[in-house]
């Protein structure tokens, strides 16, 4: 918590250092330390074969190292596509992506796996697999095809399982776990990679409050420990509390980026999500007091709000 307080102070960085306002050419390296770039992309465009519109349209962003960045936006706005472009599993039709100052194309899969731990949105084990076996797969980028597991590898696996609270489940089969336990095991696999950056696609979807908070707390702790965290999420309120920076996507374009208080603005969100919202403040206690919280209104409240606006279509019988 103390760490997070310190971090929160840094979120009021001058706007000049913020994500999209200073696009860099990929390959350009910033001096290390605070403000160094993890991901950087310019003019990124991607269209799925046969699709009418681009899934990602001229996106230029910069994801700063040692920060937690959340990509938010409605369903189908291109969040997962953007993440996959940044991870090199999709090839952009235009634009370029760089990681750590090097174009993504110059990285081998092996090198990337040592640098970035990924928790994909969906994953299905077709063969029975224990939690320990799954987490140990995170050592592959360090072991390669031949080298046997050394003490350091086993330690990394054990430490990752302890940190994600799955150590007691080590010998359980993955398909016997609950959704929350499975997700923690996958996160443990990413930790076992011992990367400097983490990328997660909706890591808390379908998890209950306790498991969801557990994962966000862990991601925050990773960022406070100096890791870069990039996640896609639908939970605006937890993103507002735990992320240093938000990227808001609408139909493949970045429409806002910056600290949560700057992005979570009611008129913007109403337009992007097509639903009336009110922005409140986290009541506290704790480090999150005052963080912006998005409260979706109901349809009736929207109708009421529209009646107050002159010229708005009224559904009233009067």
């Amino acid at each position, binding site marked *: 918590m103390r760490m997070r307080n310190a971090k929160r102070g840094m979120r009021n960085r001058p706007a000049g250092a913020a994500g999209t306002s200073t696009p860099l050419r990929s390959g350009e390296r910033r001096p290390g330390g605070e403000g160094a770039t993890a991901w950087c992309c310019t003019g990124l465009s991607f269209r799925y074969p046969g699709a009418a519109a681009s899934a990602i349209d001229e996106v230029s962003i910069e994801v700063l190292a040692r920060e937690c960045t959340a990509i938010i936006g409605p369903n189908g706005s291109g969040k997962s596509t953007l993440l996959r472009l940044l991870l090199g599993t999709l090839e952009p039709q235009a634009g370029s992506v760089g990681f750590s100052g090097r174009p993504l194309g110059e990285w081998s899969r092996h090198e990337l796996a040592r640098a970035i731990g990924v928790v994909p949105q969906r*994953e299905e084990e077709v063969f029975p697999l*224990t939690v320990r076996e799954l987490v140990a797969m995170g050592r592959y*980028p360090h072991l390669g095809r031949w080298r046997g597991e050394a003490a350091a590898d086993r330690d990394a696996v054990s430490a990752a399982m302890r940190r994600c609270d799955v150590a007691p489940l080590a010998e359980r089969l993955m398909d016997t776990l609950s959704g929350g336990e499975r997700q923690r095991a996958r996160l443990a696999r990413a930790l076992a990679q011992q990367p400097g950056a983490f990328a997660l696609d909706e890591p808390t979807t379908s998890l209950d409050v306790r498991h969801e908070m557990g994962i966000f707390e862990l991601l925050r702790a990773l960022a406070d420990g100096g890791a870069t965290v990039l996640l896609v999420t639908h939970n605006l309120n937890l993103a507002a509390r735990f992320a240093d920076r938000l990227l808001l996507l609408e139909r493949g374009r970045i429409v806002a980026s910056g600290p949560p208080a700057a992005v979570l603005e009611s008129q913007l969100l109403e337009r992007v999500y097509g639903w009336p919202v009110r922005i409140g403040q986290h009541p506290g206690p704790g480090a999150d007091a005052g963080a912006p919280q998005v409260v979706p209104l109901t349809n009736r409240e929207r109708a009421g709000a529209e009646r107050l606006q002159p010229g708005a279509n009224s559904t009233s019988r009067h």
Partner: protein
Amino acid sequence: MSRTRSAAPLLLLALVALAALALSVSVGAVAVRPAELVRVLAGGGDPATAAIIRELRLPRAVQAGLIGGALAVSGATFQALLRNPLAEPYVLGVSGGAAVGAVAVTLLAGPARLPWLVPVAAFAGAAGAILLVLRIAASAGRVMDTRVLLLAGVVAGAFFNACILLALVFADAESFRSAIFWMMGSVSGAGWGGTALLALYALPVMALILSLARPLNLLALGDDTAAYLGVSLQRTKLLAYAGASMLAAAAVAAAGVIGFVGLVVPHAIRLLWGSDHQFLLPASALLGAAFLMLADALARTAAAPTEIPVGVITAFIGVPFFVWLLRRRAA
């Protein structure tokens, strides 16, 4: 599974394979007692018995063992690549494609000429078959859909069977009788020469696939996850598809189409010891060898003096097993 933990089960499976070999060379029209077998293998014993064992039963058993191992490793590899526990060279139509290649070169070049070319032609047929099956499955929707993939395999297999029958109808009567050989599989023609050729093709490819054990573990979680964990997808998949097809092709070139070994054996290993390919692949090779040596011993002796094609035995065991697996997955 760690290396130390997997050593004991592998040793056990090696002993099982050796026991299957001993049993396989002992049974038949002339039953050989264990003591006599030891004498013969040591270089002594009754000359007639020694000849039967050394020139007939031993090469046949060794060939059955190699084929069983190759088919089991091929099946385990296809299962990992396609993320489908029901994938197997016979079910996928790969063995059928290999048979078409082998039959074609045998008819064109004449039997017993250019024997080393038969596995190569079979490989071309097998590679064509897997490309065709993946293409059919892709045009019907998702390649990884179990039902679509199996259907594509069955359709391709039926097509290849028709090709073989057609080719053999227009061949001479002697070749026509070998249709049974190509379509049901048999190791009855095994000699040391063919066995050595099979070993030459199959053993290096098995070693290659063994070297892909870790990437195959990761591929079983899906392409994206494997890539995120550092697997170079194209290279790994190309090597694994080519290797698995080559193993099936080498087996078919030697003994025709023997089905279901690649299904039954890897599943038995997974049920007993889990699915780590570093263990699964060598264990499948050993158990596959034992399985087919025993199946061939049964094929020789069950209706003696008539021989049953060994593919009939493996199908009688494999088909109920396949249905059981299908029901278990659906549940």
